[in-house]
């Protein structure tokens, strides 16, 4: 399933630079290379797991929707640091965090679903 594609992380970083978001491309992920590590967040039962994820700078985080219901992954800041398209069952979204900080996010369809990525 997983493939080493550091291009995905690069593309995400580029999109970030251009202020263009909303990837959520299916299978557009993911690497566990020496420098860029990957962390996963699973969406199960209307919840993000783990709710809080702490990662080093440069990490690509991938969310996978394992529910029967679509969800989104949207940062709560304004303007949005990241914003996925709607993820149907088994679809993924990834984003590479290039700056330290706390990134709270939520599902814009089911706003009771919240999570946080802490980048150190």
């Amino acid at each position: 399933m997983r493939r080493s594609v550091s291009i995905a992380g690069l593309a995400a970083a580029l999109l970030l630079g251009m202020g263009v978001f909303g990837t959520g491309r299916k299978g557009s992920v993911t690497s566990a290379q020496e420098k860029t590590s990957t962390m996963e967040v699973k969406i199960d039962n209307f919840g993000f797991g783990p709710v809080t994820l702490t990662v080093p700078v440069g990490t690509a985080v991938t969310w996978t929707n394992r529910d029967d219901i679509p969800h989104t992954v949207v940062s709560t800041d304004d303007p949005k640091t990241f914003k996925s398209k709607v993820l149907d069952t088994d679809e993924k979204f990834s984003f590479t965090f290039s700056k330290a900080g706390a990134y709270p996010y939520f599902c814009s369809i089911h706003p009771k679903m919240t999570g946080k990525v802490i980048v150190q």
Partner: protein
Amino acid sequence: MSEKKKDELLHDHNHDGIDRRGFLKCMAWAGTGAFCVMKGGVLNSYSLSRISEIGTSDMMGELSFVQISDSHMGFNKPANPDVAGTLKAAVDKINALTAAPEFMLHTGDISHLSKPEEFDTVDQILKGAKPKDVFYVPGEHDVLNDDGKQFLKRYGKSSKGAGWYSFDKKGTHFMGLVNVTNLKAGGLGTLGHEQLEWLEDDLKHLKHSTPIVVFAHIPLWSVYPEWGWGTEDSAQALAYLKKFGSVTVLNGHIHQTMQKVEGNVTFHTAASTAFPQPAPGKADSPGPMKVPAEQLKSVLGITDVNYVQGQHALAVVDSSLA
């Protein structure tokens, strides 16, 4: 799209013309929407699945319409692999009503993923219903990815803001509200300042004796906030409605029927035509509930509302698709 299954007699072990399986299936098809009758200023809503238990006189009023909800066209998981089929079954139920409803309300989640073809399929199926006018409000599944632009283009041409509007039918004032856009992290459904202002203004010219029917996707009362089943700023909306003698609030979203009376306001949620969800807090999450196939239609439904001028009450009855 599957054809409506006939309740055929498969095994007649008792030679009584009733086969247990067919009977259960029949029972199961008891709820796909609500038939609503306005009677004397009071709205009564009957589940379409149980419509046969309702006396003909109860079904007569000044005005009757049907509420359907949560069609989720495009959903194809085990909880219901044939949402087109169950929506068609709902339409059949509606067409079988002796007192033909004047119009239909769809309280949102028409589509599952806001795809054009999902909306097209629902439009096509609903064309087969006798009532030709359908009034829609969006569910959160109808405004994915584009902040509801497509929804507005299709269903909200004469609406305001994110798609809210009002209209009058035979002395009853109907208000379609939108509480599924601009949702905030950690929050519930939201009406927003602009819509609340419009609502206050829209009610200003009405006599307090005017029966009001408010319809929106997410419940306007706190059904179960832990699962997001409520609307942040509904209290403000209800405050504006307080002076009216008869107020009925019709919602969808939670895929089960529930009623509550609070002073002059009757709250009512309709079943889904697609798949059931668990009772509040009775599962880990509000995800689709898988029930045995023969029971599915008993937990799906339509709501019928009947309005009769004069008294002051509304009756809502839900019928399952069985």
